[in-house]
């Protein structure tokens, strides 16, 4: 299950009803795991789970790309260790004023690009214009009407409407700060050999091969990064990942599968349960247009078997339709689906157009394969014959996004700290490609954005959960943690719930 996020932009495009809010966050991470004082030096060898898509933020869809990119072209704001709050980075402070329509940002006085030039408000203004122009994610920054450069280290964003989600998006890996006019180069030249204000510079990179990052000696955070070099290699085969970690050839392995984690003993970091595999139901198909059929399917699934068997215990039965462990997350007002065959059969009996057979497409990784087989058996118990169709991730995504499917196993997760983030993704993709109408959800999300009260935001999230539970255009199969293989010599890797971390906090207790 690649944790990717395409079409984010569309979600943000509908985020026009946003409210006043003041977010002056600033959590802090003490960056320590109790292993003593950080030691500088060494090479960090990382296995990435997916190809690296390059440094152009608007074209990135995979965690592997976010992670490498933000180490070089750092965003304004950082995600704190808890994965739910934000902390200062290139921006030392940020504050909403004028009813949430102005966002004042102060830049770190020592922030410089890796070529030694200072990071200025002009650079940030240029970067924002570049992000906004992106065809995929530009709309995420669509509420920024104007960037006012106050002085070299201060700027004010003028917003068309209050936008409480904007700050979280400024911490997003795709929103890296670049030198004005790409430092006098073309965009193509820049993205090939980027200069950023991040902790590392680029030694070499390729899509499927090695990405080598070198320590940026001019990094603005005192003492960081600790390691001299990061070498990222791409390996998706679980056996290869296991062997490389066990032999010490690799120090870390990103986004490992539960089957790999189950072989690694103590060398596994499991974050809070967040990643949410889902079963999408194509509501354009006559049988699946019937909500009773969809709910029957949801009641037939053995969620415990999925959590304990397919996910090897790295997960729990779903508590709602939205990924857990984000800021303002709240459960549905009624318990989420659990296995209830009687209810499933009753719903199916009452359905006008109950299906005899359905096709289930699933990505051909080990976890999805077992989940698909569990679902196949479960639906067989209520008289629905499921034909399985395995596909590589790209083909599965293609089938899903083109609507050429009955059922698909997919995955949803946040890529920022806020509970509304995965909800926006669902809305942006026509309820995750199920074709289920989004008007009501957009309305709820509008209300979510228009309040600064936590309780009201949680109430809106509950309302969304209820909508997607009652209508069941898709069903969450589990909540599972981001799993990272980490050798014991590696310290202070602060993995967010969605599985991304900063290289600069990491140090090794041996070369």
């Amino acid at each position, binding site marked *: 299950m690649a944790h990717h996020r395409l079409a984010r932009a569309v979600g943000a495009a509908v985020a026009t009803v946003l409210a006043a809010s003041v977010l002056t966050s600033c959590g802090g991470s003490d960056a320590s795991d109790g292993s003593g004082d950080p030691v500088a030096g060494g090479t960090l060898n990382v296995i990435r789970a997916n190809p690296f898509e390059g440094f152009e933020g608007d074209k990135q869809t995979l965690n592997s790309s976010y992670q490498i990119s933000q180490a070089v072209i750092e965003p304004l704001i950082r995600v704190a260790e808890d994965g739910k709050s934000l902390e200062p980075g290139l921006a030392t402070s940020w504050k909403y004023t004028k009813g949430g329509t102005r966002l004042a940002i102060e830049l770190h006085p020592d922030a410089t690009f890796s070529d030694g030039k200072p990071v200025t408000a002009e650079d940030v203004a240029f970067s924002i214009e570049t992000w906004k122009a992106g065809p995929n994610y530009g709309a995420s920054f669509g509420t920024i009407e104007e960037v006012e450069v106050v002085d070299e280290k201060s700027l004010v964003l003028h917003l068309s409407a209050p936008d409480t989600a904007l700050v979280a998006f400024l911490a997003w890996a795709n929103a890296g700060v670049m030198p004005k006019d790409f430092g006098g180069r073309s965009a193509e030249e820049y993205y090939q050999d980027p200069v950023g204000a991040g902790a590392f510079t680029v030694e070499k990179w390729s899509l499927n091969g090695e990405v080598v990052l070198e320590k940026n000696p001019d990094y603005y955070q005192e003492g960081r990064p600790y390691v001299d070099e990061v070498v990222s290699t791409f390996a998706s*085969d*679980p*056996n290869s990942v*296991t*062997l490389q970690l066990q032999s010490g050839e690799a120090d870390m392995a990103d986004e490992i*599968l539960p*089957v*790999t984690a*189950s*072989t690694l003993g103590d060398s596994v970091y499991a974050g809070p349960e967040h990643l949410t595999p889902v079963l999408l139901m194509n509501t354009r198909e006559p049988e699946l247009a019937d909500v009773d059929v969809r709910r029957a399917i949801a009641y037939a699934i*053995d969620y415990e*078997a999925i959590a*304990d*068997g*397919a996910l090897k215990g790295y997960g729990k039965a779903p508590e709602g339709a939205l990924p857990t462990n984000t800021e303002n997350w709240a459960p549905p007002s009624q318990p989420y689906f659990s296995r209830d065959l009687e209810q499933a059969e009753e719903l199916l009996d009452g359905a006008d157009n109950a299906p005899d057979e359905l096709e289930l497409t699933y990505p*051909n*990784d*080990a976890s999805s*394969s*077992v989940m*698909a*087989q*569990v679902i*196949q*058996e479960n639906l067989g118990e209520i008289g629905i014959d499921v*034909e*399985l*169709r*395995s*596909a*590589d991730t790209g083909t599965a995504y293609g089938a899903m996004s083109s609507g050429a499917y009955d059922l698909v196993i997919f995955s949803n997760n946040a890529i920022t700290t806020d509970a509304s983030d995965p909800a926006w993704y669902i809305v942006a993709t026509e309820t995750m490609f199920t074709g289920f109408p989004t008007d009501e959800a957009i309305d709820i999300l509008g209300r979510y954005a228009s309040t600064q009260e936590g309780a009201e935001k949680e109430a809106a999230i509950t309302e969304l959960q209820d909508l997607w539970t009652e209508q069941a255009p898709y069903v969450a199969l589990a909540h599972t943690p981001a799993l990272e293989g980490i050798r014991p010599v590696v310290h202070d890797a602060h993995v967010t719930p969605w599985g991304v971390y900063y290289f600069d906090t990491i140090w090794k207790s041996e070369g």
Partner: protein
Amino acid sequence: MSTVSTSASPLGAIGGATETSRAARPRSRRAARIKLVVGGVIVATYVVLALLAPWLTSHDPTDQDILNALQAPSATHPLGTDEAGRDELARLLYAARIDLPIAFLVTVLPCLLGTALGVVCGYLGGWFDALVMRVSDLLQAFPTYILMIVLVFSLGHGVRSLLIAFTVVGWVVYARLVRAEVLRIREAGYITAARTAGFGTPRIIARHVLPNTLRQTLIYLTSDLVFAVTALAAFSFLGFGIQQPTPEWGAMTAAAQPYMTTNMSLTVLPGLVITVLALGFALLGDGLQDRKGNR
């Protein structure tokens, strides 16, 4: 001074070769017989195991027990359980009921089509022969596996697609083989005699031409079964063939691949089963070929 070696006599050499050849023939016959017997026993064993599968195991090969997945061998599960908690032995046995008939079908269908086309082309010649041969040239110009993958991918997963893909690609060799035999046979005296006697073309083909081409075709068919077994496994391994949870050796190998470091037998056993069966068919084919040579 010169010397003449008696052993250099041409007659002596010929005599020696003749003796060697005579001596080698029984050895060669024996070798052919051994190959046929070993190959036959292997294949027959698979057929018997496939037929007796329900009596050899009490487990249903598709019954999941997800909480007992990837168990080590035990009295209940002699070869352990797979990633969905299914009995590995039952799956290996029942997979023979899937793989053997499909391997047979994907070999026989192209054989029937190729033989029919080869006979007609060889006997009648003309524009039809030219057309079929050009089509076969075209098909042979493509790498076999690539063409089959393209076909299966466009036709969709499943047995039907496999049958079509194997037939579309596989008939060519049979057609060429049979056509070449027919070209040789059609000028034979007994064919001329049949024509002179006023027998019709269908009768001549059916009664006199076809039977005389079958030996070579059958030998090739046996060898082709080796390709069928391995190719079927390869397609399922790649996800184009039989889908889970149906027990099929190639699919089982693919499904077990992520567990190589912890449950190696799940990958190795189906692989071994495929290898031994392919060996069985290969020995049968070789044995038949050798026997034909000896005659």
